[in-house]
């Protein structure tokens, strides 16, 4: 992990609830699963320019952006790093932590001072495997996130703002 980050447990957060900011994916869960997930949540503060997830490598954690902005990037050797999506507070980074083969499909790099809510990939998978109530509540919003990204990526593929065809004028 880069040196620029500072980790903390939720229990030591300045706010007594441990989650002073809105985290829609967590907030929307029933009380029981929400509490069990929150108990395993850690906090991570990162400076801008820190790559905390690496394309092609095993995803170490599923994270939710508390504040800041994160770029999902792909390596294209002849073009360098290409940003294909940026994510804002409330967005989920690292869904591949709970989806086989648990390998990151993009790199994730902070663009601003960023705070993340962090769930260790192995612990989270174990919890999902042993806690059906939590799995049933948590997986649909994760799937919703992935589906929205697929749909948005399709629109991006269309490159709609590029002029095509022969202009009659």
């Amino acid at each position: 992990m880069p040196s620029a980050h500072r980790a903390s447990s939720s229990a030591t957060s300045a706010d007594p609830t441990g989650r002073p900011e809105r985290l829609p994916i967590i907030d929307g869960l029933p009380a029981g699963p929400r509490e069990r997930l929150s108990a395993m949540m850690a906090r991570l503060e990162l400076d801008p320019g820190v790559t905390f997830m690496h394309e092609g490598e095993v995803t170490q954690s599923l994270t939710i952006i508390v504040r800041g902005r994160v770029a999902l990037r792909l390596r294209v050797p002849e073009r360098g790093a290409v940003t294909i999506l940026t994510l804002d507070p409330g967005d989920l980074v690292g869904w591949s932590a709970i989806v086989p083969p648990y390998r990151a499909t993009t790199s994730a790099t902070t663009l601003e001072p960023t705070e993340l809510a962090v769930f260790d990939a192995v612990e989270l998978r174990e919890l999902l495997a042993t806690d059906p109530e939590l799995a049933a509540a948590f997986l649909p919003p994760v799937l919703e996130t992935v589906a929205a990204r697929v749909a948005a990526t399709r629109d991006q593929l269309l490159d709609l703002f590029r002029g095509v065809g022969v202009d009659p004028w």
Partner: protein
Amino acid sequence: MIATAVTLETEPPRFLPRERFEDLLAALGAGGRRVVGPTVTDGAIVFADLGSAADLPAGWTLKTAPGRARLERLPDGPGAARTFHYPVSGEGIKRFTFPSRVDALSMETGADGTVRVKVEAPAEPVPLAIIGARACDLAALAVHDQVLAGGPAVDPDYAARRRDLLIVAVECAVAGSTCFCASMGTGPEVTTGADLILGELDDGFVVRAPTAAGGRILAALDLAPADEDRAARTLAEVARTRASMGTGAVPANSRSVLIANLDHPRWDAIAERCIACANCTLVCPTCFCTGTEVQSGFDGLASSATRTWDSCFTDGFAQVAGGNFRPRHRDRYRQWLTHKFATWWDQFGTSGCIGCGRCVAWCPVGIDIRAELHAMAGAASAPVAAPLPRHDVRALPQVSQEALEFTPGKVVAVIPETADTATLRLATEDPRILAGAPGQFVMVAVPAFAIPPISISRFHPDGIELTIRAAGAATSFLTRLRRGATLALRGPLGRGWPLEDAYGRDVVIVGGGIGLAPLRPVIDAVLRDRDRFQDVRIYLGARTPRERLFVEEIDVLAAREDILVRITVDRAGPEWLGRVGVVTQLFKTVRGTGTDATAFICGPERMMVATADVLGDLGVPREHTWVTLERHMECGVGLCGHCQVGSRFVCRDGPVFSVAELGGDLRLEGL
């Protein structure tokens, strides 16, 4: 309306012996009136100037079937010398009232560099008499009167040609297998539009004069009254013609069947046969779509524009900078047939088909619209329903002839925006343009180039701005103009953004790419009157950071505390620290948007649909979600027919529409 008035026939019919037909021609031609009628030319019946009665197609008939029309000699016998014993000819009388080529504009750059555009005065045609028009031709003429002279804009050339026209109609004594006027209620009896009506018998013609002009001709001929037997025989012949056609050639509910089945697989089946040759539109007496051809000298300093017949079957008909809205033959055939039998009603209160059957006979592959309509009705895949209530196009304000004139605009500044886009700041003194509304557009003319419609991207007290992407020859030239150059403007045109719909409400403005340009006057207006609106949120998408428009201006807006501005790009390198992703992704963090919001959206159509969907999910009502459509526009006032989307002419009924108004048409491919 210019339609020739029908007067009560108070005079009894007269009899014109065949040997005196020459006298009729002479009476019609008195005073220098040009007289045209059917002739046999190149194996077809063609309207041409008549030198004498001998030029008429005496002794000929025409046999028609789907994909077939052949002249044949009449069989020997008493009727062998009949003159009009054929059903409709390949061409009607359209080219005399609505010629295929009409001088439209002349444009020149003067010695002082000033561009002048002159709208050509309407033709001053010599008075014309047409002999041999049929009931269907006259029904078509009445349709054209509604389309081209019924407003909101009037085609001045058509109006001039219609002004002094004498029509001698013939009631059909024979129908072709392709004729179906009886089913459309337009014939074979002549009920409207004729000054004289002929019923042909072997030895001559029973003549009626339903108008005063026709009555004067008849009086000059000094004919004896037709005896009852002759009058009865002509009526019987027309009755036989009617009976031979039968009724029900097309389903009575064709209009609702078509509207309910815009995605019917039958369209694909037709498209497998249709070769998009455009013959049907060329022979159709009601088709009125036109294009503009520009001819230029080598120096490009002077040019002229000609209005020409166009066809919705041609490749370029629905072409715009972003692509082609009707790339497939099925799209074009569906446009043509649904226009004739369905959306024409919404636009003009009549059917666009008058049952002449020319499109059937002169279709080289023999597609029979009667059969297609029956097939569609018989296998309707969607429930047949009454057409949706439509935008009331007949309630639109009239367009004055002055509004069709061009006015000068002088380039006072050129602001480069991106590699291919520039903003021209233009000075103009035209009060109409200065009083334009956000969302309206102007037609922009410079010699030697086609005349594009361009959205106004800002209003100033003494001019306007146009933000133009170089996507073709004309737009490339415009973006390279220098300060001091002049061009010609016509407008402002169209219905703009309804700002009043957002008074007292939240405002959501979503722009994609060059789509920000037509929204910029909305942003200006909202900020000028900020207190009239609740929360104001602006979401902008661009292809890349370098392709953003009005960058400094938007940065200033983004720094304001009384509005929210979010910008995203579709793709970026690591140097870009802003947002990346499609514009709809921006909304997920603003769940507060909802029923109290009015949205104004402009960008590629798919982006607008996706945005409207997301906003709809957030609760923004469809009635308060506004989009602006881009379509091919040649005239800007609803006369050229290019920009139709369903029953709407985008240029005059839009380009701004609510998502509720557009309904399913917004997402129907190829419409």
